[in-house]
């Protein structure tokens, strides 16, 4: 095994891959060979660093220089300047949003984005090569499995998880240890463990990142779970839309088998365990546990009523323990460092850390992991770097389509399972979409309901028909055809669906409407009564007009695709509202800020 003097870490997560990190790796290897550096410098493709906004991200060790938005043509410069001569390429060094500083001399942990974070589930993402089991081993990998199998009883393992206070990270927040205990208590000749990697919430991508950046952590945790509950087989249900995750998981499972970490008689303890991957075809409802298990069995992905709970009768009618990817990502660390260590983080009822996917109108789009109880303000403003373009914060959507929108007045809420529910939203899988003053809350509710209508499996009436009716009302409102009584009808439908739908998807489907009605009722009323969209977002309810700031340059008239703008040169122009398509091209073109939406 060779020692290299320098490691170049290139992010190979989905975000950076789509901005061209694969080309960067090729180019680095080419250029290093050209300069005879290939025996001194090693290029490693890692998982996601979390700062997707700044991708593709490249880190050069040992000095830890953090380069962002690296283009293939920058590679030559990094090789000849930094790697050959030891001079950092200043203009490519990441600029900290909060402090406006470049990190040239700073350790990665000191960047504002990482400073407030505490990475447990993401600890290896962006640090190791996910396709190399040796690197995972070097980061204390499979030590927890070793500890559990050789020095702990099954009851002790379950007890440790129970004491740690870990709760399901997929959204429900059910105590993980209890789930393990229930499945342990079920008597059967065969039991299964399963991993829910059917991450479907719009805007959430932490499970993908963990699978891409640290697949062995999931394998190790599932083996530990298998030992604890008495299962010899496990299934990972992962969406087919995550090709990189599927590939790395496959590589990792094969490596683990090769090393005897999966298979028969692991560590000579007589414990057998093996893992299989099942691909989901992209149905949102397959993230629901009963639907997911039907899908693994090869049946149609539709939910069934509970009880019986999976812990009693799950996969192939055998007791099954299903946990989310992020939940598993914490398990090995808890076994290794103890329940007390884990429980020392977080709030009274929500222990440990949680990964959030920051998206929407925010500077640092990406993945962050913070202790439970961190306030929304810290996450959005300190770590996320605030709202771009000096716009005003309006709301943050948490919990995906089952969650809700929280307004500015709730920004100081410490984030944990119970606080979010009390505030009218939920943790969900941890998506966090930030909205600014340009977002119309009625339209946001409409967007989520549209998603739910698409994804409803159609098995139960409240969800299939009820959400459709709600969507129709919302479509009417944003199109300026809302009438008195619409809000009340929405509320009635929402309550009925909530209490009668068959599965979690249906029961939580009205949440976006309920929460926006709770905090932004005035926007609904403005749409219906005044036929105005306060955010100037809904096209049917706005008009473009030219103010007296107009200098008569004719630029707008020339760009208008509908010839709706008329006026003489050097005189104020005018938009004909009947012809106007509301495309906004004129507003973009105007250099004087004379065109406004009303």
């Amino acid at each position, binding site marked *: 095994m060779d020692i290299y003097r320098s490691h170049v870490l290139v992010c190979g997560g989905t975000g950076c891959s789509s901005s061209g990190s694969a080309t960067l790796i090729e180019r680095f290897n080419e250029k290093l060979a050209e300069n005879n550096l290939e025996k001194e410098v090693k290029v490693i493709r890692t998982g996601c660093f979390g700062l997707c906004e700044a991708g593709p991200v490249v880190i050069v060790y040992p000095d830890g220089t953090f380069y962002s938005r690296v283009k293939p043509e920058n590679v030559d410069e990094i090789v000849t300047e930094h790697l050959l001569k030891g001079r950092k390429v200043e203009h490519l060094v990441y600029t900290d949003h909060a402090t406006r500083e470049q990190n040239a001399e700073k350790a990665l942990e000191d960047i504002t984005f990482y400073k407030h974070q505490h990475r447990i589930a993401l600890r290896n993402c962006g640090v190791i090569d996910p396709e190399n089991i040796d690197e995972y081993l*070097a980061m204390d990998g499979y030590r927890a499995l070793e500890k559990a199998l050789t020095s702990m009883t099954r009851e002790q393992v379950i007890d440790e998880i129970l004491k740690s206070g870990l709760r399901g990270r997929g959204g429900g927040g059910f105590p993980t240890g209890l789930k393990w205990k229930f499945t342990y208590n079920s008597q059967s000749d065969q039991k299964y463990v399963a991993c829910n990697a059917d991450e479907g919430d719009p805007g959430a991508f932490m499970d993908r990142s963990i699978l891409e950046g640290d697949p062995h952590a999931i394998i190790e945790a599932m083996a530990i779970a298998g030992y604890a509950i008495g299962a010899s087989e496990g299934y990972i249900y992962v969406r087919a839309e995550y090709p990189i995750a599927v590939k790395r998981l496959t590589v990792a499972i094969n490596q683990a088998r090769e090393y005897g970490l999966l298979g028969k008689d692991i560590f000579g303890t007589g414990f057998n365990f093996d893992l299989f991957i099942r691909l989901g075809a992209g149905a949102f409802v397959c993230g629901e546990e009963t639907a997911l298990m039907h899908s693994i069995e090869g049946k149609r992905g539709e939910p069934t009523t509970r009880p019986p709970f999976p812990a009693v009768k799950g996969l192939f009618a055998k007791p099954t323990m299903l946990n989310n990817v992020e939940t598993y990502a914490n398990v090995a660390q808890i076994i290794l460092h103890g329940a007390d260590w884990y429980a020392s983080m977080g709030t009274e009822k929500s222990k440990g850390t949680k990964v959030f996917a920051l998206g929407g109108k925010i500077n640092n789009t990406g993945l962050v992991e913070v202790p439970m109880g961190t306030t929304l303000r810290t996450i959005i403003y300190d770590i996320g770097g605030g709202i771009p373009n000096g716009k005003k914060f309006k709301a943050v959507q948490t919990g995906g389509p089952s969650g809700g929108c929280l307004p500015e007045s709730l920004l100081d809420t410490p984030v944990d399972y119970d606080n979010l529910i009390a505030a009218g939203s939920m943790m969900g899988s941890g998506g966090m979409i930030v909205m600014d003053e340009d977002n119309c809350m009625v339209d946001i509710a409409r967007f989520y309901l549209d998603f739910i209508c698409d994804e409803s499996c159609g098995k139960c009436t409240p969800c299939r028909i009820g959400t459709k009716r709600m969507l129709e009302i919302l479509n009417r409102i944003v199109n300026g055809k809302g009438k008195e009584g619409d809000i009340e009808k929405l509320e009635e439908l929402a309550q009925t669906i909530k209490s009668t739908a068959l599965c979690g998807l249906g029961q939580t489907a009205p949440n976006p409407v309920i929460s926006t009605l709770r905090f932004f009722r005035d926007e609904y009323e403005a749409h219906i009564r005044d036929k105005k969209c306060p955010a100037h977002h809904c096209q049917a309810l706005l008009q473009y007009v030219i103010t007296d700031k107009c200098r008569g340059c004719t630029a707008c008239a020339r760009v208008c695709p509908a010839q709706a703008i008329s006026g003489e040169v050097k005189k104020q122009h005018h938009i004909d509202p009947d012809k106007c398509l509301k495309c906004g091209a004129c507003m973009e073109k105007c250099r004087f800020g004379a065109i406004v939406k009303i």
Partner: protein
Amino acid sequence: MKSLAELEAIRKSTLERINLRKEEKGEVTRVVIGMATCGIAAGARPVMLAFMDEIQKRHLEHVTVSQTGCIGMCRLEPMVDVILPGKDKVTYVHVKPEMVSRIVAEHIVNGRPVDEYTIGAAENA
């Protein structure tokens, strides 16, 4: 199938390889080699390779090799700084590959700088 002892051996040897990705700056011994045009022309590259070779041979953890630019004393190149954790920087000048094993053995491993190779010795001569 790997035994527990084999896994431990893999952990150890891999850790050596990826140690430089950790950012515990205080604990790490740094070997910094002048690799500007002057340094390279004076033969810094074989010196650096010799350092890497020696470090690998001795399985030294917590030692990183990096380069730096020209600090202006081109006549003394190749120059090498060795910085032990918590100690002052020691600068070696006119370093040749054959001097490297002694620097590693006496200074990096045993903490005694090789006085006769340092910049102080060169300036006094």
